[in-house]
């Protein structure tokens, strides 16, 4: 679910902060720059793990800032394909069931990844699994807020830094990082189904 990413970046220290403790300042700057940001094809940055190396501070002519190049590692959320996670049902649409974990909300279980015989109830806005045991059919509702276990099938990164001028402005803004999951395998789905 979480992995380390080794990075290098340049941090500027403005003159009015020179009296501050250096590592504290560097940690803060990295936190502001990367905290809770999605890096394209890398994942969602959670926190700074450690600072491995830093160069001697440099001052360039005509510029007041002190420049330091850092090597550091950050903790990134990027579940691998096939990884099983526990989360909650966030909302249901005819597209499928949207689930979330506390810190990441863009996970979709599309309708073909729900258990077989799942039916969309338009008036109640909910997916129902028509679970057949012998002659009986049980209606298992996938209600909002229920704890759910799912397996990741696909990830999708969108490079939102790319300038998209000329495109339709009304188009829904694309998410930088989105996950797709399935609950068709035995053991997956609402936790209450398996207890």
């Amino acid at each position, binding site marked *: 679910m979480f992995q*380390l990413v080794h990075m290098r970046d340049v941090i500027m220290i403005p003159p009015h902060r020179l009296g501050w403790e250096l590592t504290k300042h560097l940690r803060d700057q990295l936190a502001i720059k990367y905290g809770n940001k999605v890096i394209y*094809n890398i994942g969602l940055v959670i926190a700074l793990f450690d600072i491995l190396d830093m160069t001697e501070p440099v001052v360039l002519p005509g510029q007041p800032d002190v420049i330091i190049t850092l090597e550091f590692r950050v903790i990134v959320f990027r579940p691998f394909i096939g990884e099983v996670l526990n989360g909650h049902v966030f909302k249901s649409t005819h597209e499928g069931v949207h689930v979330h974990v*506390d810190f990441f909300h863009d996970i979709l279980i599309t309708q073909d990844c729900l258990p077989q015989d799942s039916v969309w109830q338009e008036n109640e806005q909910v997916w129902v699994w028509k679970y057949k045991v012998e002659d009986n059919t049980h209606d298992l509702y996938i209600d909002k807020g229920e704890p759910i276990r799912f397996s990741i099938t696909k990830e999708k990164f969108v490079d939102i830094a790319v300038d998209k001028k000329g495109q339709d402005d009304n188009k829904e803004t694309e998410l930088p990082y989105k996950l797709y999951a399935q609950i068709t395998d035995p053991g997956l789905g609402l936790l209450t189904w398996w207890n």
Partner: protein
Amino acid sequence: MEILDKNAGYLSNFEVLQVVKEVNIELSVIKNKFSNEHMFTNTENVEKFLAEGPSAQQTPEKIKSFLQTLAKFKLKPSEKLQILNTCPMKPVDLHILVEECDTRFSDDEVEKILELVQEHFCEDAMMS
């Protein structure tokens, strides 16, 4: 920004929990000082998520001895990591974590792996 290694190793949920706990303590100090509430607040959600899971009760010693005893089963590193992170209780929980579990492991072995999880991480559950 330059990426030197896009995967410098996986972390267990336990390790991440230790880091975000520290970050959140620092953060509470900063918040009082500058009231910059939007900075890094997601770590609080990560802590909440992990604190509800089994990693909240784990300790480095227990994890070490668990992984040592688990070594005799031919599990992939990613499978071991998931077992550690989720602590499966029932055979069905283990089957979804381990690929082709039926062919690779006998029912006895599955039971043994689940027992190991119980022994190391579910003392309280066993007592009750």
